[in-house]
């Protein structure tokens, strides 16, 4: 059961380095051959690259441990990235912090209540300037997901 009192909760934050080799690996895994990523000495990150923040956060220390979602019924509903200027380039150090923005329920089209958890992650540079934001929608379904649902 999702704990609605987690609205407003934040994690402790952490710092991640944007690395050229990681950008190259990610670009190739997402089937890009773009020289902007593969050949530039300090490439910018691909649009969805900040999902790799998972490598830098401590397992179990994230904000989701406070929300207490059931992983067997968990779906990724959507993901949004906003960049306040060109995306950060290799060599940038990002200070990362996630907060639970909202938790709400909706009736599913196939019956049962679905719980939506919206989390927002802010990425700031060494000067404290907001470089990028990520908004994630996680869904806890009434029962384990079936084919045709979200991934």
């Amino acid at each position, binding site marked *: 059961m999702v704990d609605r009192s987690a609205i407003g909760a934040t994690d402790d934050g952490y710092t991640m380095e944007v690395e050229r080799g990681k950008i190259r690996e990610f670009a190739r895994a997402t*089937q890009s051959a773009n020289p902007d*990523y593969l050949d530039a000495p300090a490439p*910018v990150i*691909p*649009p969805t690259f900040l999902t790799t923040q*998972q490598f830098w956060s401590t397992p179990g220390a994230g904000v989701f441990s406070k929300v207490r979602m059931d992983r067997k019924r968990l779906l990724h509903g959507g993901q949004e*990235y*906003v*960049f306040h200027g060109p995306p950060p380039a290799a060599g940038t150090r990002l200070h990362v912090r996630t907060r639970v923005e909202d938790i709400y329920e909706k009736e599913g089209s196939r019956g049962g209540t679905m719980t939506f958890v919206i989390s927002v992650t802010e990425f700031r540079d060494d000067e404290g300037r907001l470089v990028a934001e990520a908004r994630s929608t996680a869904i806890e379904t009434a029962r384990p997901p079936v084919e*045709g649902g979200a991934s």
Partner: protein
Amino acid sequence: MIAWEDLGVGATLPAREYGPLTLTDFVRYQGASGDFNPIHHDTAFARAAGFPEPFSVGMLQAGILGSYATDLFGAAHVRRFAVSFREQVWAGDVLICSGEVLDRHEDGERRVDLRLEVRRRDGGTAIRGEATFVVE
């Protein structure tokens, strides 16, 4: 790269196919992203969860859509990129990325708002997306 003159409201972007995707593509993406959920590579685990076989990571097809869009508009030009997940993607799927211009702005710098889609060639919509890019 596409010229501003060709980016009127309603203009369609050239569609592009990716795949067929393989289980190795899923695993490679999981390694690159750090998401090691076994439902995307472990058949026994996927079956125990009620699925016939492992299915792709939603963020893989989202990332492929990002590759499609940045090839058209340039890596440094993305300002917003949003996806919502619809149908799952399976090994063997060919994905078709497409898009159209929803709106455009010229206040200071030129920007286009795009509607994007990832469609399974033998199925329905896998991802609905929206993006904003700067156009020089």
